């Protein structure tokens, strides 16, 4: 197998965290001279010199605690035996880590621990990978003189409520590593030590079962546990892994690095990689535990075709499915013209795969009808940041937040949607950074244990631009701007225009108060706080982009950062939090219909020439159809064939009645996916996809970080996704002959200046690379726009507030806004097929008590939700998290039909749908909506068509 396969071993643990200091300290440990940064502990200094002092309560992911008394050492001139984990190094210190005296003390300590520990090592799940077992060996424990009949915890009851791990208190040594991990790493504070002395025990929330507690199942406690107290159920079932492969999570835009710990081709557990540059050894419930979908029985592993969506599927060979597709596409082009077909690339697939799909469309289909689901999430980021700063990407690394003094989070809910970054952000807030939250909902960042936002701007959905303009108005009118930065770094005329605009009375906080619902003084306070910080950073999400003014809001954010000089160094910046794992990458790879890879417009003859020479084709100089345009053109009868890789537009896109009508109008719809998703129910060809565990490639996360995805098992259906695209290109008559994604990345690097220095070799060497990576920045670029902006001078754009057409009235008096929840991911196709449903088995409608009471609605009631686009029914959750007049739901379950209600309103510049603002009415009902009843019967029929295909193939085999 490849060198990526490493024999299983526990990651090296240096005992206490690494310290950074300009000053170095030299000491002697066991006669060895060691030099380490000031502030380093003796335990860590020894470990760095290869001297392993026994330890139990210490681990390098947590601050020193000093409770187990095992890491005691002798220090010349010091009294007693200090704990090496809590003792910092001093110049000239002379340390002894092994002596008869130390050995006796350590053995006695271990003897006490083991006197209250079951001796079932041989049948224990962590046998062979247990720190307590290791320490018993290290100190030479040979007997327990106290016996086992004294007071003990052997009868304590196991908690198996969490679907992914067990808590066995009989094995607990009360080292507090789990409690500290929950506090320091995750920042949830769900665990505590309950009781005192011998009765001390780990408790979740108020002594509740883990599943019912505040625990978010991130796995940090399991990772920190040195015994078998907190253990993955998969490990209990399967035993210890025998090798591991470092790869990248396929869930959100944080892009955590993981060790896939394997037994042959079976994943035993996914463990966050301590060397991971985006996550530094942390994870969330999705990446850590929710990988079972990859081998779920619903996976479709044989290609299928049919002539009509009203017919059963037929399982066929790959050859037949591909030639069927190519024939249909060619016929459509012959009949309706070259522009009658197109493709949708996936933000869940690798860079290499998205690159290949857009190449297929531009080179083999001969048009630019290619788009990606970033259209419906972050296309305004691409437009807004390209216009103002010159590059369609966030400006910082995640680690930059640790140098921010003020953090402003707008339209994003990181604890739910980007949990690992949220933990880092909360850590910085606990260190003292100030926090501004701009969100209609009181998210966990507004108030949760040890977190309280200094300002919560609870604005009405749809008024982001008004509020951002008002903040800028305060900054300029009160003279808080960074004049030097503006003069040196930004276009002068554009700034003067913007300055005159922003000072207009219509942009004052007082003028904006009525529209936005945010008191003027709150806006003023937040603006002053943001502008006065040495380092202020903005993080934003889909609550900014998914509006009719999404692009304007992104530019308003860039204006704020430029006018206060908060760009071009660590601790500041403009940071879009990307929804899916490879949203950044799919945009970088030229998935938009107007841009070739590297965000270069198709109308540029020089750029086209570069690709034309390399690809040996002529490229259409005009932009192609965006996803919503494709649907409109399909209904109009001019767009007839669509290749969709790893997207579920029939669940994720707005105004689903319209989407269904469009998809039903197609003559050939090809879906490449893991499951028969909602979109596949409208398909004529199903090409089985491969999960992230089954392929090689790269993902690019929200901080422009390119990380390797490594294959840990064979593709269930035989091909990696890029291979299927290649088969289709060849069948369409455009030759492709890549033998490995490495070669695709070589082509990307050859044709894209920002990727010029990227290669698989360099990724293996550095672990990950933040683009731009080229001659100027061979190691990549953590912080962008340092000396100057990518476009040269920063461009202030005038950002008039144009209210959305989607307004409340007497018929639709409430505003619906949609979002995500921690345990589920996007359309839920993956997470719904895991035990994560334990936390979120259905989408519910959050409604304020005031609105609920007016309508006679109580928690748990069926509620009809109607907009001008459609109607659905959800269960109600009455809560003050939403403000009066606003209702909220998620879109993780198809039968909820959240997107039946959302409308075709979209961002003016990019057509990104306005998911965040829909005028609705809510009312108590007794039964499901008409749409839901139609959905149920359509789904049943399509599943029957699938069953028939499978039964047919069994008959054929039998």
């Amino acid at each position, binding site marked *: 197998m490849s060198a990526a396969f490493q024999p299983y071993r526990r990651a090296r643990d240096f005992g206490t965290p690494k310290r950074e200091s300009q000053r170095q300290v030299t000491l002697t440990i066991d006669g060895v001279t060691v030099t380490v940064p000031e502030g380093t502990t003796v335990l860590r200094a020894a470990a760095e010199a290869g001297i392993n002092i026994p330890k139990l309560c210490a681990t390098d992911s947590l601050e020193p605690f000093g409770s187990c008394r095992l890491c005691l050492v002798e220090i010349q001139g010091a009294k007693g035996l200090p704990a090496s984990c809590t003792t910092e190094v001093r110049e000239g210190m002379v340390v002894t880590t092994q002596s008869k005296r130390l050995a006796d003390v350590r053995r006695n300590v271990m003897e006490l621990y083991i006197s209250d520990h079951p001796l079932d090592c041989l049948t224990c799940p962590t046998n062979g990978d247990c720190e307590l077992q290791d320490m018993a060996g290290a100190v030479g424990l040979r007997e327990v003189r106290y016996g086992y009949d004294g007071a003990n915890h052997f009868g304590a009851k196991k908690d198996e409520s969490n679907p992914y791990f067990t808590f066995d208190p009989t094995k607990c040594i009360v080292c507090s590593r789990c409690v500290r991990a929950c506090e320091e790493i995750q920042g949830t504070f769900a665990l505590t030590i309950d009781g005192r002395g011998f009765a001390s025990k780990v408790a979740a929330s108020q002594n509740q079962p883990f599943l019912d507690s505040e625990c978010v199942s991130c796995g940090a406690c399991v990772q920190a546990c040195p015994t078998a107290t907190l253990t993955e159920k998969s490990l209990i079932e399967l035993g210890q892994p025998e090798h591991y492969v470092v790869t990248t999570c396929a869930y959100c835009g944080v892009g955590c690095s993981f060790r896939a710990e394997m037994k042959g081709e079976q994943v035993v557990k996914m463990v966050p990689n301590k060397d991971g540059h985006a996550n530094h050894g942390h994870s969330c419930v999705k990446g850590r535990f929710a990988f079972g979908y990859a081998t779920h029985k619903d996976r479709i592993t044989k290609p299928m075709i049919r002539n009509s969506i009203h017919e059963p599927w037929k399982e066929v060979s790959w050859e037949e499915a591909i030639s069927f597709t190519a024939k249909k596409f060619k016929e459509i082009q012959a009949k309706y013209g070259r522009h009658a077909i197109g493709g949708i690339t996936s933000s869940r697939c690798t860079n290499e795969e998205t690159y290949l799909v857009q190449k297929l469309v531009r080179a083999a289909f001969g048009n630019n009808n290619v788009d990606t689901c970033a259209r419906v999430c972050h296309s305004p980021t691409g437009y807004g940041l390209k216009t103002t700063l010159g590059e369609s990407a966030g400006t910082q690394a995640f680690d930059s937040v640790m140098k921010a003094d003020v953090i402003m989070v707008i339209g994003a809910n990181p604890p739910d949607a980007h949990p690992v970054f949220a933990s880092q952000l909360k850590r910085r807030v606990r260190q003292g950074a100030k926090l501004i939250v701009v969100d209609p909902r009181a998210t966990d960042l507004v108030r949760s244990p040890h977190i309280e936002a200094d300002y919560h701007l609870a604005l009405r959905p749809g008024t982001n631009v008004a509020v951002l303009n008002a903040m800028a108005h305060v900054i300029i009118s009160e003279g808080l701007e960074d004049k030097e930065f503006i003069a040196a770094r930004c276009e002068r005329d554009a700034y003067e*225009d913007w300055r005159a605009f922003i000072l207009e009375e219509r942009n004052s906080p007082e003028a904006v108060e009525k529209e936005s619902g945010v008191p003027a003084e709150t806006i003023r306070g937040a603006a002053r706080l943001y502008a006065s910080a040495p380092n202020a950073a903005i993080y934003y999400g889909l609550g900014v982009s998914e509006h009719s*003014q999404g692009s304007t809001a992104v530019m308003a954010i860039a204006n704020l950062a430029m006018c206060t000089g908060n760009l071009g160094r660590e601790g500041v910046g403009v940071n879009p939090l990307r929804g899916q794992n490879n949203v950044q990458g799919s945009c970088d790879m030229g998935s938009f219909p107007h841009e070739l890879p590297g965000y270069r417009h198709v109308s540029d003859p020089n750029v086209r020439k570069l690709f034309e020479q390399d690809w040996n084709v002529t490229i259409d100089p005009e*932009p192609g159809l965006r996803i919503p*345009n494709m649907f409109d053109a399909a*209904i109009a009868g001019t767009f007839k064939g669509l290749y969709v890789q790893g997207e579920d537009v029939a669940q994720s896109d707005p105004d689903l009645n319209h989407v269904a009508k469009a998809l039903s109008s197609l003559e050939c719809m090809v879906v490449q996916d893991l499951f028969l998703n909602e979109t596949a129910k409208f398909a004529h060809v199903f090409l089985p996809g491969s999960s992230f565990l089954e392929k090689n490639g790269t993902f690019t996360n929200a901080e422009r970080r390119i990380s390797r995805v490594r294959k840990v098992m064979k593709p269930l259906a035989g091909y990696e996704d890029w291979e299927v695209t290649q088969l289709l290109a060849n069948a369409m008559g455009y030759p492709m002959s890549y033998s490995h994604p490495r070669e695709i990345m070589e082509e990307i690097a050859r044709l894209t200046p920002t990727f010029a220095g990227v290669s698989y070799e360099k990724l293996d060497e550095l672990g990950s690379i933040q683009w731009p990576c080229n001659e100027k920045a061979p190691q990549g670029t953590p912080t962008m726009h340092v000396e100057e902006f990518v476009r040269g001078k920063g461009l202030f754009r005038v950002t*008039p507030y144009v209210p959305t*057409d989607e307004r409340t009235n007497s018929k639709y008096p409430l505003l619906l806004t949609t979002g995500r929840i921690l345990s589920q991911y996007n359309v839920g196709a993956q997470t719904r097929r895991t035990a994560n449903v334990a936390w979120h088995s259905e989408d519910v409608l959050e409604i304020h008590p005031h609105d609920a009471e007016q309508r006679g609605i109580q928690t748990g009631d069926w509620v009809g939700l109607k907009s001008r686009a459609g109607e659905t029914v959800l269960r109600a959750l009455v809560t003050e998290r939403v403000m009066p007049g606003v209702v909220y739901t998620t879109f993780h379950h198809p039968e909820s039909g959240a997107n039946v209600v959302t409308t075709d309103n979209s961002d003016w*510049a*990019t057509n990104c749908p306005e998911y965040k603002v829909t005028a609705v009415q809510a009312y108590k009902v007794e039964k499901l909506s008409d749409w839901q009843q139609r959905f149920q019967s359509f789904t049943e029929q399509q599943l029957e068509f699938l069953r028939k295909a499978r039964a047919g193939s069994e008959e054929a085999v039998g």
Partner: protein
Amino acid sequence: MDVNKLVRMANQIAANLDDGKNPQRAIDGTVDHLKRFWTPAMRRQIVEHYRQGSNGEEVIELSFIAAQAVARLAEEQQQATA
């Protein structure tokens, strides 16, 4: 495609590029935007609609700036075919 949708999109583009002070800049910006992001077929359709009117169907009207921008596209198309 539904011409009302195209008109709505063009009006939105025009409204967002208009700072209320420099209509010429807003018109230039709208023309540029339509060329950079709309397919030729979408541009042709809105130009056709601009030239021929509603044909009796109920349609949304182009705003002043959007109409000026579409007029410019119409002129350019005419020059290109002349």
